[in-house]
């Protein structure tokens, strides 16, 4: 894992890897703002399987195949916490699960003007939830602005 810079992250990543090995293809995602290794409660909830895990410069991405063909990606910071999730596919993921304690904040956010069911852009304090698309092709992302790793390019968050 040459791209991991901090020792802390290396340990977290290792724990995650061990857990993944233990759970095999049934592993699901962690939750926004929570440690990467807190995935066990999510496994049965999402009926998902991990498709790939990729180490990028300064962070790691788990790509999770949900039932149906929707993909959910979880972005893990060097401190071992999930700082963002992103999705695309014919349906949305279970955002209550993926956003965890931030779901209620998201759900309570006021709607902006000119809604057309094609766009979503919610900013509530540190939480940002965005989406676009149309029927049979929905995409979106949620992240914690203060938790983005330094140098992270938002253009890579999809």
């Amino acid at each position, binding site marked *: 894992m040459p791209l991991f810079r901090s020792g802390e992250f290396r340990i977290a990543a290792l724990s995650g890897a061990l857990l993944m090995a233990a759970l095999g293809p049934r592993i699901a995602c962690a939750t926004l703002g929570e440690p990467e290794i807190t995935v066990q409660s999510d496994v049965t909830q999402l009926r998902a399987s991990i498709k790939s895990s990729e180490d990028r410069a300064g962070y790691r991405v788990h790509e999770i195949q949900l039932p149906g063909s929707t993909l959910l990606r979880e972005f893990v910071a060097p401190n071992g916490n999930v700082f963002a999730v992103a999705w695309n596919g014919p*349906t949305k993921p*279970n955002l209550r*699960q993926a956003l965890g304690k931030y779901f209620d904040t998201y759900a309570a956010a006021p709607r902006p003007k000119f809604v057309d069911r094609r766009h979503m852009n919610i900013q509530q304090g540190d939480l940002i939830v965005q989406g*676009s698309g*149309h029927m*049979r*092709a929905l*995409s*979106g992302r949620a992240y914690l602005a203060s938790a983005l790793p330094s140098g992270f390019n938002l253009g890579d968050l*999809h």
Partner: protein
Amino acid sequence: MAFLRALRTGLGVALCLSAISCGGGGGGGGGASGTSTIPPPPPAPTVNTTSVIVDQGPTVNGSAIGSINTLFTSVTVCVPGSTTSCQTIDHIQVDTGSYGLRLLSSVLTLTLPVQTLSSGASLVECTQFVDGYSWGPVALADLTIAGETAKSLPVQVIGDPRFTNIPTECSSTGGTQEDTVTTFGANGIMGIGPFALDCGDCDTTTNGLYFACATSCTDTTVPDAMQVANPVTLFAADNNGTIIDLPAVAAAGAVTLSGSLIFGIDTQSDNKSGTQTVLTVDGMAELSMTFNGQTLANSFIDSGSNGIFFADSSIVTCTNSQISTFYCPANTLTVGPLSIQGTNGAMVNNLTFSVGNTETIISTAPTDTYSVLPQLAGTLPAGNAGSFDYGLAFFYGKRVAVAVQGSMTSVGTGPYIAF
């Protein structure tokens, strides 16, 4: 009122057309020749055109909800098999970016029969939108629009008081529960995009869209014939696609804009293909657009989007928090070129469009009262730099055909969009 006027005009045109076609056989013959047999007149062609309008939207509590760049029509629905239990509903959104007819229960005076699965459970759908969801049963209705009829069409009744317990699996997809006219933004929606069904694999996969509801609701697979369907595909004729024909509008916009929705492509004299470019769309009904030197593979042209949405960090966004994702350049910008490519390789190049200052448009007379705003444009999230969403403004001043997957016209096989 504008809508009713337009509807009356549309009906008038339809009546004139049928009068002409019926009267055509009678002229010229002398009255005296008693032995000749007069051939029966040819059957009048099915009226395949209905009027559409961009206006302020349906009325709730005495005032229009203030729609912008939203295309509406009227439909007549009947209890299946009945010619008397029928209702005409106005302000049904015409949407090329979705599939199927959905009606808001609050405007529906009929009781439409809900479909039941082989288990005896009722079929209920959680329709997912980017910013929310709509919950309601899948019922059957006979739909009539223009002279076209779809018998026993599966339609969703949104917000039906018979099905109020929304399963967590549905509400957990998040966003707004869009089960009222105000939250939904229309009295209903008619999805006439280039596919037949609102789900690609719900006959074999449970994915949170369809539910079997008895004492509780469970995610279920559904036979294709029971799924909410693009109504055009169930017409007896003129069922291979649609054409939206809207007049051009002044750069600043207009209070309303009236045009036509024509059913069928190359099926009658009024829907013939011409020299337009045919752009085949991919399995998600998307095209590739090239803009600012970037190829945006997940782009789409969509009558259901109310602006022109794209990422361009060089254009300033609005400071007003309610419209902070819309663009607010100091002066109206001409933006482009934009090119659009289908999966068949066909291209339309060098399109340009205008981007206005959204704050000025919505707060300054006379545009503050306009529902037709061709220069309204907004951002897409930066993570979606692979997409360009060209909304209803694309259709202004154009005749845009959408052919359904697998159906043939004189210029190609669907799914395609042509203009």
